[in-house]
């Protein structure tokens, strides 16, 4: 996976984004698009991390609330104005709701460190590495895994 995303000079491109003041990144190759959210329709009885459905140019996109997925404090106010990172999976469109989207960084895979083993359970599954950058720590997320149910709900369902 990583190899295919390497560009000529050995770096991997990451879309960076912010959730609750923290800094994250997702591999550009996993991201379909980035868009601003206008309105989200909640889906009753759905998994808690599902923010709802939204209309993106005539397509229905299932929005996942990254804060809830990662067990972070809930957003204040609605989703309007938030940003979403669009992901396509098996022909379906998903959007990961984040607070803000930043620049695209090219990061050398060599400086990637494994995520610490003592991370919170809801993070361990999805964090695929940490970059120590001058600006601070950047946690690389596996976007595809963000769509899977958080461990807590799986346990609850079982």
């Amino acid at each position: 996976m990583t190899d295919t995303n390497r560009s000529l000079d050995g770096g991997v491109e990451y879309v960076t984004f912010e959730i609750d003041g923290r800094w994250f990144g997702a591999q550009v190759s996993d991201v379909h698009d980035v868009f601003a959210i206008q309105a989200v329709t909640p889906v009753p009885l759905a998994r808690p991390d599902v923010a709802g459905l939204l209309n993106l140019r005539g397509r229905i996109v299932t929005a996942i609330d990254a804060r809830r997925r990662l067990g972070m404090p809930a957003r204040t106010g609605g989703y309007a104005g938030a940003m979403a990172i669009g992901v396509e999976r098996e022909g379906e469109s998903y959007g990961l709701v984040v607070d803000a989207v930043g620049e695209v960084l090219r990061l050398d895979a060599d400086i990637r460190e494994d995520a610490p083993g003592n991370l919170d359970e809801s993070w361990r599954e999805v964090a695929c590495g940490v970059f120590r950058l001058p600006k601070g720590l950047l946690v690389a997320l596996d976007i595809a895994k963000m769509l899977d149910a958080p461990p807590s709900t799986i346990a609850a369902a079982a």
Partner: protein
Amino acid sequence: MDDLLQEFLTETAENLEVIDTELVRFESDPSNEATLNNIFRLVHTIKGTCGFLGLPRLEAVAHAGETLLGRFRDKALAVTPEAVTLVLRSIDRIKEILVGLEATGAEQPGDDSAIIEGLQAAAEGKLGAAPAPEPQAPAHPVGPNGERWDADLQRFLRPGEVSLAELEAAFQNTAVEPIAVAPAPKPPEPAVAPAAAAAPPKPVARFDEPEEDDAIAKGERGSAAQTIRVNVDVLEELMNTVSELVLTRNQLLQMVRGLNDSEFKAPLQRLSNITADLQDRVMKTRMQPVGSAWRKLPRIVRDICRETGKRIELRMEGEATELDRQVLELIKDPLTHMIRNSADHGIEPPETRISKGKPDTGVIRLAAHHEGGHIIILVQDDGAGLGTSRIREKAIEKGLVGAAEAAGMTDQQIQRFIFAPGFSTASKITNLSGRGVGMDVVKTNIEVIGGSIELQSVEGAGTTFRIKIPLTLAIVSALILGARGQRFAMPQTSVLELVRVGGGAEHKIDTINRTPVLRLREKLLPLLELGDALQLQPLPTTQERARYVVVMQVGATRFGVVVDDVHDTEEIVVKPLATLLRGVPRLSGATILGDGSVVVILDPNGLCEALGSAPETVDANAAAEIATVSSEGRQSLLLFRAGSGGVKAAPLMLITRLEETDATSIERADGRAVMKYRGALMPVIHAGGDHMFRTEGQQPVLVFSHGDQPFGLAVDEIVDIVHEDVTLDLAADRPGVIGAALVRGKATEMIDVGYYVEQATADWSQRNRAKKRGRVLLVEGSDFARTMLTPLIQAAGYEIAAAPTPDDAWRLHEAGARFDAILADVDANPAAAATFAEQVAADAVWSGAARIALSGSGGQAPQFDDCVRKTDRSQLLAALDYAVTAKRSWGNAA
């Protein structure tokens, strides 16, 4: 794989399907030359294309088949089932080779010599069958003026005209590329042979669209060049694009609406109309005739006939009925399965049929027609019908139902067990069907697409399945509802009506132990609060305002869904929920409304389940589901406490109203308790005894009506309303109790409403008693219904005798009993009930009695004088009253 080969595969597969059907048709009607020509042409096309693509194995098999068909066509050989089987076998071989070809892109090696030799031998007339009989007409007669007869054209050739066969021969000798052979033209049309010759040779024969084949077979030429083959994905994309266009248009319209005098208005209006038009037409491209899903069936039936020695005629009606191709794909397999079942298990062998006095050829009828937004497909056979006793045994054996419970179930209820998972009664597993996967899969597949399946079967006379499916899954008409500030779409197919409640409206919602109910036309309707069912956050309460109850019917269950608002109806484009949300209950999809907002679509089945009276859940609930339509099994019961002892129950169907009255308003008059009810005094008694009346606070009263006279039954507390399977244990011998039943796992006393009617309205009853209005015989197999009805009829002033079966009834006859009216249940065993009614009508003593059919559904019973619903007490009593009075006045006149 190269495109050409891919196209060949698709096209050939379709052609082969047509050949299958046509061959079966041809076999039954060998004189139909149009059919034969069609087959010949298709085989020839396949052969030609194979040669062109360099597929020698296929070509050799197709060629041998074509040769034999050619002999048929020339009338050199008689058409025998053996020969047709041979051709069909060659078609099967072609299919096998095609499978290999599709998988690998190249012909797989294999030995076809046996098949080819068989076909050649048959073509040379060496098949064990008799040689061709002398053709009725000379093969090549000569016209009055020496014109030559052309078998293809069915007429004499005009001077200078060339016969089609000759043209074909010429093509075969010269053409390097295969050529679509023109179909047999019909006499009224001008000679088309030259046209065929002029047709530009193409690598793949475009003439062979299956739809066109049908058209051509019917003599509707000219459509051939009008159709093209389009990948369905392209249509899907087109559909999506149009949906987006519609949304964009709506947005534009909304923007312009705000402007008073916009130059955009007129062109936008046009854009709007054109968009609507476009949407309509794109929808149409997705429609296909249902017949295309049936094409394989004649062959299947024929093969079953050959294998089992049965004689079956498959009648297909309404093939042209169109429905969405997506739906079509989904019903193909269930239908095939059902036809297989009918042919294999339904229709009996000819000897059996004859011994039963039926024609030796069984008929399977497959008919389709439109009905509202649905398509109805009937699968009907005149075979053996479902063996109720065998199904009953099997159901008990499989633990789907207890033996006692099964004994009390009607035949119809028992028959529905065939839809239970893994249920199969086929005692031997045949090659054809009966592998244990059966009707449960059919039912599930049909329900997945929002359809339903009903079953009617009379042992010995046949089985009818009625399948109801939506025309399209893509667009449904929906009500847009509001609950706690959120909007939802409710498919209108399950909605019966809307009722405004509260806020000064005529209706209002009552609660019984926190269970909301609505009194609607003297019936209690269980309600579901949509906001609660979906666990929506309650809004801060505002002032009391009118709300709405959406009255729904799912299966046999009727219920109401309470919502805050009803916004609109809209045709919505249904989009499935993402995989991640598939498991979410009570929702079936999502859609984008005209204003661009997304709403989720509610699932009526899921809501019904949320009500607690799941019409269908997994496992044993197949039994529960069917019970709702009949007298026994699932009952709606009102649970209450009164006096000592545990919870008591009364059937909800007997209760007219639930009143809560001030305890002080219950007064004593003439030593009896009465209360004001609808401007008159109504007698009230307490179910726990006279001393149990409350002296202060609210006194709950169940109101029963007994003819015109209502009476109240006061109770201590109303506990709940439940919908449960009830098996009555008839052990009680205390007055006022008919027995005990397990309700929610607890023993519950079932009160005898008739007893209280009598107590409460003693003087009326006595008056009636004195008169002895008449003698009634009740023939009812269900213990529950019999015990419920007997006291009611008694209380109405009739003398009653009850018998569980017609045989028991005749025993009363032997004992010399005479009756004014005979009530008989017709649901459990319609045939037996009909026979019983006929026997009664023919009987010297009993023929004077009025015959009244009791049915759960209030259907038709021609052998009876009248038919009433057994749940409708007032109708029943009215029918009795009418019957007895009429009989009496006739008797007096005579």
